[in-house]
């Protein structure tokens, strides 16, 4: 399954993946190959991507659309911060940025807290 994540400032991620989880407005949902066609909006949260090699990548997004087809997924978001880095300081920076993005976009404190906790635990897994 192919995935393409783009923001108005450029492409964030593109490639082959096994599965992905999205923060949909109606709740979190996962997508595997062969998913029925779907269009929905996202709320501030994390997109989790499981790559072909089993590695996971986490990307914080503020708001956008997802279009799912059986063989590919298109994600159009307004802002996105991948929580990645090769050194600890880089990861820490990415976490800060991701948290800020969520804080600016979310309308409830509960949501911010929930997403922040998720970012933290995702970062520990790196």
């Amino acid at each position: 399954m192919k995935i393409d994540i783009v923001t108005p400032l450029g492409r964030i991620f593109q490639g082959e993946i096994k599965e992905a989880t999205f923060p949909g407005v109606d709740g979190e949902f996962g997508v595997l190959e062969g998913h029925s066609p779907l269009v929905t909006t996202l709320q501030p949260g994390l997109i989790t991507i499981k790559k072909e090699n089993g590695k996971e990548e986490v990307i914080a997004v503020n708001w956008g659309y997802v279009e799912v087809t059986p063989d590919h997924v298109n994600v159009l978001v307004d802002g996105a911060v991948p929580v990645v880095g090769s050194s600890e300081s880089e990861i820490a920076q990415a976490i800060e940025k991701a948290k800020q993005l969520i804080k600016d976009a979310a309308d409830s404190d509960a949501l911010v807290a929930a997403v922040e906790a998720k970012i933290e635990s995702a970062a520990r897994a790196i």
Partner: protein
Amino acid sequence: MATLKELKSKISSVKNTQKTTRAMKLVSTAKLKRAEESLLMSREYARKIDEVMKEISAKLSSIKDSINLRAFANIQEPKKVDIIVVTADKGLCGGFNIQTIKSTLATIEELKAKKVKIRLKVIGKKAIEYFRFVGIEMYEEIVGLSSSPDYKKAAEVIEKSYNDFVEEEIDNIILIYNGYVNKLTQMVHIKEMLPIEVEVKDSQEFLEVEPTDDYELILESLVKKYLEYTMYYTLLDSLAGEHSARMQAMDAATNNAQEMVKQLTLEYNKVRQENVTRELIEIVTAIEAMKKK
């Protein structure tokens, strides 16, 4: 024949012009680089949103009749359309603006032949000046947006048209602009934005929209986003095109000035030579005349 003094001042004035055109070329090159960067960054998103809209509209055919959105409606004969023209605010960029204007005039003629009413929205001083000069009525004039693209302002412009479209005031939105292809080429684009064409396919493809209870709202917001972003991208594209056109025009002007300086210098030398010869002849004849006495 021009005097030496005249020629000298002509040469220096051409040289001054050359300095200006060269400076303008350098400025355009720098600005083009920046415009190109922001264009490339947003190109992916623009392409993707285009693709997503197309895919969605292809899949909508099965539930088309149940959608109550005018953006996906089938409008056979448009009666009134909005034309949005984007040109630069500044000139001195070769045929960049006039190409867009010509295409606009051709489109207007075509639509008039079909008895379609037109509302002209013009972004960019150059086109506004032109349409004012030839006496074509404009519905809206926007200055300053094409030289510094702004997402919010671009969205405002297209949203007004979209709202009129929803209110059935207009039946189509046509976007005309001169876009950037590469450093040497620009291309005029004429895009029909609405309604979004729904391809009627026999295949049993379907599309789920979540949350299901207000899927029209989601589709509409997606359409709006698509329009807004296309408008914004158009401005970026036009700006990059403008700078590349100006860079080319100024480069040509610099070369022309160089050629002119060469010609004038040649003429200057000829005149000087002539003067020297004439003076010599005068002296010699004067001496000869004195000898005879």
